[in-house]
Every structure is written in structure tokens, then in C-alpha cells.
């Protein structure tokens, strides 16, 4: 197990390409970002000029259920930027958050410590603002990200898809340039079916060594942070509705559990120390939930 990055990112900013519109205060941002040609139009509003050409464009996070598509798997398809964030982005990223996705885009960037701007329809500004306020109120103490798999990223699209599936399966990895002996397992990219790759990695690692497991949802992706006396689980719900119940297993004894859930008060239930791990249930998982655990 080793460290990666800290869960303490700059809050996501709002990038507004269009003309001024009412409701910008709901976004909860002191200063918006806008293309240079548009800044003058925002009288009375703090606005910074940002050339969108300087930003790395990323897709909106979310889920495609693919109900009407013939497919090999019945699992919903999670569109996550997590693998891109773990590979690393140059400078700032710009996410064109689709309908209702602005809050999730902000949460995802926070969970991966990414520096992003989000564009969103005015009707989503309030949700974006609510998420920003939630992120700002989270525990400030940064904790290192935990992983026990090293992934030797070669920069190829296949490697990105490998990482995407590892992340989707909550197999906690970090990108390494050479094998790291401190990690339980080091793997190289592999072409072909990325889902099969993830399963192969899982079998090599074994479920017993997984630092974290989730039961009950195929649309929630977790990150784990921690030090000698704490664990922090960041849970991203990529669907457009609350997930009713997720069981979480974290390796180690961390019986003190407190929950910060976006938009709701949620308490951990059925906390047990099970073998060498701590398990608890979150009865509801909103778009973003951060769980603090201690000895």
C-alpha cells in the first residue's frame, strides 16, 4: 500500500461561455470564468478571462444504462473521467456537463483532486453551487490516496481503458513508471477486453487483499484515502438518482464512522468488524458521499 495524491483540490470553477444570465449567484462562485470576448458583458460580476483553447476538454460524467442495446454485459456503462485524472491532465480541464451533470462533474473532480472548470446550463447552476458549498464544508485535512496496485501506464488508449475498468471495479491502483515493490501487485497495460483485464488483476490481487469493496451497486465508484489513524472513503454515484443502499468493506479496523452526504443527512448503519475489515452500510448514496473512519 502506498500513497498517491491528496484529497484536497481547488474547488471546481464555473465557466460561462454564453451571455450573462440571471441565477449566477446560485452557483455559489465568487468569480466566474468566461472567454475573453465575454468578460465585458458581466458588469457587476467578478469574472476572469480564460481562453477555452487552453483547457483540456473532458466529457461529462454519468451513466448509460443501454437498455435497448444488444451487449455482452447487462451492467450499466459508467462514464468516468477518473482514469484521465489519474493519468494526469495538462493544466486545467474543461468539462461540458450535460443535462443535470454539473454537480457530479464538480464532485468527481474533487474526488480525484483535479483542477477543473465546468460549463453547465443555467438551470444546473444551483445544483453546481450546492455541490461547491458541500465540497467547501468537507473536512479540510488532506489525506493521501491509498492503492495497492501499480499500473505502468504507457499512455495508450488501451491503457486508459484498462485503468477505467480497474477504477470501475474499485481495484485501487496508482500510476507507476516502474514496478513498485511496496505495492501488492504491479501490472502492465493489456489490449483486448478491459473488463477481462480487470478481472485478471482482481484474481492476481485476490479479494482478501482489496483495500476496499462495495456491494449493492454498479454505478458507485470509490476512492480511499488514509493515514495511520484515519480512513476516508469518497463515493461518487454516477447515476441520476439516489442509490438505496451500498455495503462498504474497508480493510482494517476503523469502527468510528461518520458520513458527509451531498444534499441529505445520512448515517452509517450495521457497522461491524468482520475479520480484518470494517463493514458498514450507507442506506442512501447521493451524488457524492465522503465517509470519515477512525480507530
Amino acid at each position: 500500500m502506498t500513497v498517491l495524491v491528496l484529497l484536497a483540490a481547488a474547488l471546481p470553477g464555473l465557466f460561462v461561455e454564453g451571455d450573462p444570465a440571471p441565477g449566477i449567484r446560485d452557483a455559489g462562485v465568487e468569480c466566474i470564468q468566461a472567454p475573453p470576448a465575454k468578460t465585458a458583458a458581466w458588469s457587476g460580476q467578478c469574472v476572469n478571462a480564460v481562453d477555452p483553447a487552453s483547457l483540456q476538454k473532458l466529457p461529462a460524467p454519468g451513466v448509460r444504462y443501454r437498455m435497448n442495446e444488444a451487449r455482452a454485459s447487462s451492467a450499466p456503462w459508467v462514464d468516468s473521467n477518473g482514469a484521465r485524472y489519474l493519468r494526469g491532465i495538462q493544466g486545467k480541464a474543461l468539462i461540458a456537463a450535460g443535462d443535470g451533470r454539473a454537480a457530479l462533474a464538480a464532485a468527481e473532480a474533487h474526488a480525484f483532486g483535479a483542477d477543473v472548470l465546468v460549463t453547465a446550463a443555467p438551470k444546473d447552476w444551483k445544483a453546481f453551487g450546492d455541490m461547491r458549498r458541500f465540497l467547501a464544508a468537507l473536512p479540510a485535512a488532506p489525506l493521501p490516496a491509498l492503492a495497492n496496485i501499480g499500473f505502468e501506464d504507457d499512455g495508450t488508449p488501451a491503457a486508459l481503458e484498462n485503468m477505467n475498468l480497474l477504477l470501475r471495479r474499485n481495484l485501487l491502483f496508482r500510476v507507476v513508471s516502474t514496478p513498485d515493490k511496496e505495492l501488492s501487485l504491479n501490472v502492465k497495460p493489456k489490449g483486448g477486453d478491459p473488463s477481462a483485464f480487470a478481472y485478471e488483476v482482481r484474481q492476481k490481487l485476490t479479494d482478501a487483499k482489496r483495500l476496499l469493496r462495495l456491494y449493492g451497486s454498479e454505478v458507485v465508484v470509490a476512492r480511499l484515502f488514509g493515514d495511520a489513524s484515519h480512513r476516508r472513503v469518497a463515493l461518487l454515484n454516477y447515476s441520476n438518482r439516489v442509490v438505496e443502499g451500498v455495503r462498504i468493506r474497508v480493510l482494517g479496523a476503523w469502527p468510528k464512522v461518520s458520513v458527509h452526504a451531498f444534499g441529505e443527512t445520512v448515517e452509517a448503519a450495521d457497522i461491524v468488524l468482520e475479520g480484518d475489515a470494517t463493514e458498514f452500510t450507507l442506506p442512501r448514496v447521493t451524488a457524492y458521499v465522503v465517509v470519515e473512519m477512525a480507530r
Partner: protein
Amino acid sequence: MTLPSVAGAALGAANAAPKTDDLPKYRVHSSYAPSAQPGMPGPFPGRVVDVHAAGSIDPATDKVDPAIVAEMMKQGMLALTGEKDYRAAWRRFIEPNDVVGIKLNCSGAPKICSHPVVVAELARQLIATGVPAKNITCYERFQDQVVSAKYPQYLPEGVNVWAASALRDAINGYDPRTYVEVDFFGEDDTRSNMVRLVSERFTKIINVPNMKDHGASGVTGCLKNIAYGSFHNVARSHRFEKTNTYSFIGTLASVEPLRSRTVLQVMDGLKGVWHGGPFLHQDRFRFYPARMMFGTDPVAIDRLLTDIIEDKRKAEGVISVFNRSMDYVKKGDFRKDPNTNNFIREPGHIEFAGSLGLGVFDIAKITRKEIRL
């Protein structure tokens, strides 16, 4: 009555049911100890009471006669127990201070399900036995299916109807501490948790399955209804052509406290499905056995159910439930063509459950008492 033996029919050596060595590795996680006499197989292993009443259901209208159903139930319980009063018969299994769960079968609702008239009469007889209505709960996994069957319109006042999940993937209705863990095909969620009321509230359970064909398990009767209907995340067992229903059904049914608390099997065979189950995709796949079977042994009842479904399929001139040829699997539209299979069927799950001690599979050791009203 001599029953036709179907075990082994159309079973070639090359494509036989799984060998024990090939079975998935199951890890049962339960803190519940079995009772002194577990409900399955209960006090009457191998005993089945089969009550026929032609007037119980009108095939032209699907209308069920509540008075005939009530008499079928009383006669069935008396014959099963040897008691002279039906309330005394019920008290052999249920005491007034019990909290009773009635396991519905709603997977094909509303077209085919534990009939509301049957369930309501069962609840009435429990109440007559002394169980308060508020201590009776009809349960199933999925809320939309239960709602579609409209049980509250039939049930005595005070009887509860409960579903474990309002949304298909919701797990709050399940016990996080009682589960079976198994990795079938690399799925990330390897747990199937028990319905919370089963482990935390009910003291007794009565199972009310239907008489149905099943595309994966061959038939679905007592065992599959109590097993797959009392745990979540079970459909993963039949994702590919070769399924794991053979061993998963019996394994789940054996988990405590489900096994100990399930004290009665009341099979609602007024209406059945001979192809396409558990759903009724086409009206032509329904049939009307107009019978109910009573017992404590789910294996013995399901063994007889296999014959009922197989005989009906033979009469319809379609492939056997024991047909394991890949030539028929996903060849056409299973929902429309009774000469196709969705999966390699595993009716052997009943014999496997018998090997786990859940009941008697050997037809020579099953005693069936037939009653005709």
C-alpha cells in the same frame, strides 16, 4: 397412483448435470443456528397431499372460487397432519405468538402469481388459528410485482404486504450480516443477502409457490421460490447459457434461519405455466391444473412438480425440461417458441437440494395422498 419417472430422461453422459467437483465455491455467512427440527424438510419428509378441485378456477375467466379454495386448504392441512380440526392442523406448525411470513411468488405477476384468493384464505385460516393479523406479512422481493397483484384488495384487514426493494438494486431490505458469497463469472458483487424480515422478524414462514416451468432451473416451485425469493443478487446465477441454478437454489434454501423457519409449503397450482416461466409471455403457455399441494418437504413437492410440467410439455409435443442440447439454446425466441431454451435447464437442482438434506427426491420414497373435491 404411479408417477412416470423422468429422472435421467434425455440425459446424455456428455452433457449431464454438473459434477460436484465442478460446483462453485460457496461461503455461507450466517450467525443463526438451525432449530432442533428445521422446517425443511420438517416433520413430514416425503409426504405430499395433492388436492384437486375442478371448480376451483374457471379457465375461461381465471375467476377463482374462494369457498372451494378454503375447502381445499382445510382438507390439505387435515390430510397432511392427520388432525380432525383444521385449526389444530395449522397449530402443528404455527403458534398464536408467531410472526408469520407468507412467501409470495410474484415474478410473473399479475398474470401468474400466488393467487390473492389463495393467499387471503391462508391468512384467514392463520387468523382463525389465533395469529393476530398484524403478525402476518406477505412478502416478496420487488415492489412493482407485488403491487401489480393487488393483494390488499383480498387480504383480511391488518395483514401486511411488504417488498424488500422499491428499486431493483436497492439493498436496504436485506440483512448485511447474512449472505452467501460466491463468484460465478467474475461479477464484482459476489454477495447474495437474505431478506431482512426473514432473519430479523419472522419466526415462521409459509411458502406459496406456483406450478411453473423455468427457463434456467427447469421448473420453479417450492425451492426456487423460497431461495431466490428470499435473497438478493440472484439473477447473476443465470447470466450465460450454462447456469449455476443447479447448486445455487439448494444452497440458498439451506441457509439459516431460512431453512429452519420455513415450516410449510402450500403450492398454488390452480393455474400454471408450462413454457416461458417464470413469466407468462403468452396465454397459450398457461394451463389449469386446478390443484394445490401441501407438505413440509419442498424437494418432494418439486419432484412431483417436475413430472407435472414434463407431462404437460410432452402433451404439447415440445422438448423436455431435461433437454440439455445446445442446439435448442437461444436458437429462437424463447418467449414464443416452446421448442427453444434460454439456458441449459437445470431441473437437477431438486435432486441437489435433496442431497443437502432439504427433502426426499427418490420418487419411490415419496408418498402422495390425492384428494379430489
